[in-house]
């Protein structure tokens, strides 16, 4: 039996390797409690301590091979391990390094909490990492960006004996709708790393910083970044909010990008402490976090959500975006009577962050969670998938007793298209709508239909409409409309060819043509509006 495909009780076996130094005296973890807690709570998990795991990658490879595990979680005292060597060892052991979870238990538990608290938090963080590791579906060559080693001789480089790799986003051609005019990922990328060539979206890896903005912007879920599929995020958050011990409650999600993670490390380096209920979730960038995610955390049982601000590295666009998104979530909660302070933007400067973690905890953690028990999986179904964002908001609105909530907000993730009397049903807007919110449908009767749950308020429909002042777009989140789904905005019968009976064009368009040709000879108007393109020759 191949150990890498073997499953125990239907679960992919996970090895959790913990650096033995995490158990050092003076406030280290109770490693026995961590191991027993994990082995009780997480099925098919194999926990092992490794001496000096942070510095000796070859030991990690050997331990993985001995465990026969299909995937791995590493609990380390510190970052800064030799990634290239570790990844080579993992490949030899048959694991994909991009699927391996590394948890900085030093910065997130040991150095910021008491031994008892740190042990509880470590159990939760490791369970969450194991859940995400289990849902890793593999990476493609397109997801890999080799990096220049930080210090290397020319000889070593040209022999390519050891390279570091960064996970980057990749577009699955078979799911991409670029050919249908979708450009959502291009608009979302702050680095102009994506372009359209030969009808396909191409990624310039040298520009890509793996920020993930394109991944959550894609309405067709065609873009993936290893570690950040909707299934992986759901698995991680589900365990973060639901894994034992129950004593660690209530829980709040602390969303940090790479720079926010550095701020938390800096705090840990000062010996500061903050409430243990803040559970970090490191994301590639704040720009990739849509408002539906922040609200989904609450829907899945978080008492609050803190987003550590970032002004470094992701570009001004992303900072503005995340501020707007947090404000949108607060607006939703405010209008629904659900304590807007549950979602909060925190400063990144370490001392200010520390103060905010304490003061916000008082506001957030003393209010009971919106959801006492996480909803059944069927009720939320892929809460972090793009297609589920409307469902999350509708479900949250119902839970808050505000099913008719409707708000206008500049950062609303949904748009609302309205059509005036001048629409000719030409379909230009539908052809420009990459997410597929607008469609021109119908055989006997033409209908321009709209599904607000799919609209991203990109505005391309407005640009495509040839009729002035006919189409309007509002950034609006309207739960009743989101619940109703697709509806017809305009309908019109097809004008029929007097020769063959086939459709010519929608009647409103023919009427528009008639107005445009009002000064032309009547025969011209008759030919154009009464005959289809195939039969016009007969008419002349």
């Amino acid at each position, binding site marked *: 039996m191949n150990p890498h495909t073997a499953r125990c009780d239907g679960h992919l076996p996970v090895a959790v390797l913990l650096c033995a130094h995490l158990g050092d005296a003076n406030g280290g973890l109770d490693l026995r409690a961590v191991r027993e807690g994990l082995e009780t709570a997480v099925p098919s998990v194999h926990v092992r301590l490794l001496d000096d795991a942070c510095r000796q990658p070859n030991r990690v490879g050997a331990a993985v091979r001995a465990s026969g595990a299909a995937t791995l979680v590493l609990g380390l005292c510190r970052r800064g391990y030799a990634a290239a060597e570790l990844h*080579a060892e993992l490949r030899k052991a048959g694991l994909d390094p991009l699927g391996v979870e590394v948890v900085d238990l030093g910065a997130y538990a040991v150095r910021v909490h008491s031994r008892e608290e740190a042990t509880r938090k470590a159990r939760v963080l490791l369970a969450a990492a194991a859940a995400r590791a289990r849902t890793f579906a593999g990476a*493609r*060559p397109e997801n890999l960006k*080799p*990096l220049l080693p930080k210090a290397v001789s*020319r000889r070593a480089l040209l022999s*390519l*004996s050891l390279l570091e790799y960064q996970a980057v986003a990749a577009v699955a051609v078979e799911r991409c709708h670029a050919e249908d005019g979708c450009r959502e990922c291009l608009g979302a990328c702050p680095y102009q790393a994506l372009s359209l060539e030969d009808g396909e979206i191409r990624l310039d*890896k040298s520009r890509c910083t793996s920020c993930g903005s394109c991944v959550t912007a894609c309405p067709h879920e065609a873009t993936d970044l290893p570690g950040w599929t909707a299934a992986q995020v759901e698995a991680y958050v589900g365990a973060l909010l639901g894994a034992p011990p129950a004593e660690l409650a209530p829980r709040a999600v602390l969303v940090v990008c790479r720079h926010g993670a550095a701020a938390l490390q800096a705090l840990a380096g000062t010996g500061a402490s903050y409430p243990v209920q803040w559970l970090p979730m490191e994301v590639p960038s704040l720009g990739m976090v849509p408002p539906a995610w922040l609200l989904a955390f609450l829907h899945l049982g978080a008492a609050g959500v803190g987003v550590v601000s970032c002004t470094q590295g992701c570009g001004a666009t992303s900072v503005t975006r995340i501020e707007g998104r947090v404000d949108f979530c607060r607006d939703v909660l405010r209008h629904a009577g659900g304590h807007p302070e549950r979602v909060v933007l925190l400063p990144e400067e370490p001392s200010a962050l520390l103060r905010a973690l304490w003061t916000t905890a008082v506001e957030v953690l003393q209010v009971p969670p919106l959801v006492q028990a996480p909803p059944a999986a069927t009720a939320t179904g892929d809460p972090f998938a793009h297609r589920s964002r409307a469902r999350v908001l509708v479900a949250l609105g119902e839970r808050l007793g505000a099913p008719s909530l409707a708000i206008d907000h500049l950062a609303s993730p949904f748009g609302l298209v309205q059509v005036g009397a001048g629409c000719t049903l030409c379909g230009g807007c539908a052809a420009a709508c990459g997410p597929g919110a607008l469609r021109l449908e119908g055989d006997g009767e033409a209908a321009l239909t709209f599904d607000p749950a799919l609209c991203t308020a990109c505005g391309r429909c407005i640009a495509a409409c040839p009729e002035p002042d006919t189409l309007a777009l509002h950034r609006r989140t309207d739960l009743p409309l989101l619940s109703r789904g697709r509806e017809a905005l305009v309908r019109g019968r097809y004008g029929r060819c007097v020769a063959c009976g086939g459709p010519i064009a929608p009647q409103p368009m023919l009427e528009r043509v008639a107005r445009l040709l009002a000064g032309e000879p009547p025969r011209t108007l008759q030919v154009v509006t009464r005959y289809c393109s195939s039969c016009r020759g007969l008419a002349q």
Partner: protein
Amino acid sequence: MATAALRQERAGEKFAGLAIYPRWRLLLRTVRLAAGQAGTLQADFSRLFVAGRDGCAPNESYQLALDPAGAAALAAALEREYAGEGVSLDPAAGELPDHVAVEMEFVAFLCDRERAAWRDRREAEGRRLLLRQRQFLREHLGRWVPRFAREVQRADPSGWYGEVVGAAAAFVHHDQDLVDLLLAWTRDPARGGGGGE
């Protein structure tokens, strides 16, 4: 073939630093397991690549759906590229210049010469050959091999050729990344590169 694959598999851990390593190891295992299946492989080969029923012809002109004039122009351009580096097709072998094996062998040839250039400290020649590889990979193999792999995997989802061609596509992609990386490195004066693209 199986013995050679096993030998490669055992010796290959030195490539574990490259992300392509797991795919390469899987490929070697696939090759090894193919021993004794010559009849099946031959039938699959004919179905996929010779009869052309499944649209898997291993040629650039076919995969890019070029018309006869376009295919002829491509063949002429490729032969000029090969001649520019001092190589040509053996007329007796009856090979087409846009066949996947021919194009890949040409890149391997450039790579081998590049290795020799670095070894002999002919840095300008090393960079020139890297640029040639990048150009050829972008303009030819990188444009059509991913499509070819998708076609073969669709027609042969669990088969030997699906794995082999999938590995080839992964290798082409990875090779493009490595060539870009090396070029960036050789352009960087701080690292000793001399620039000059």
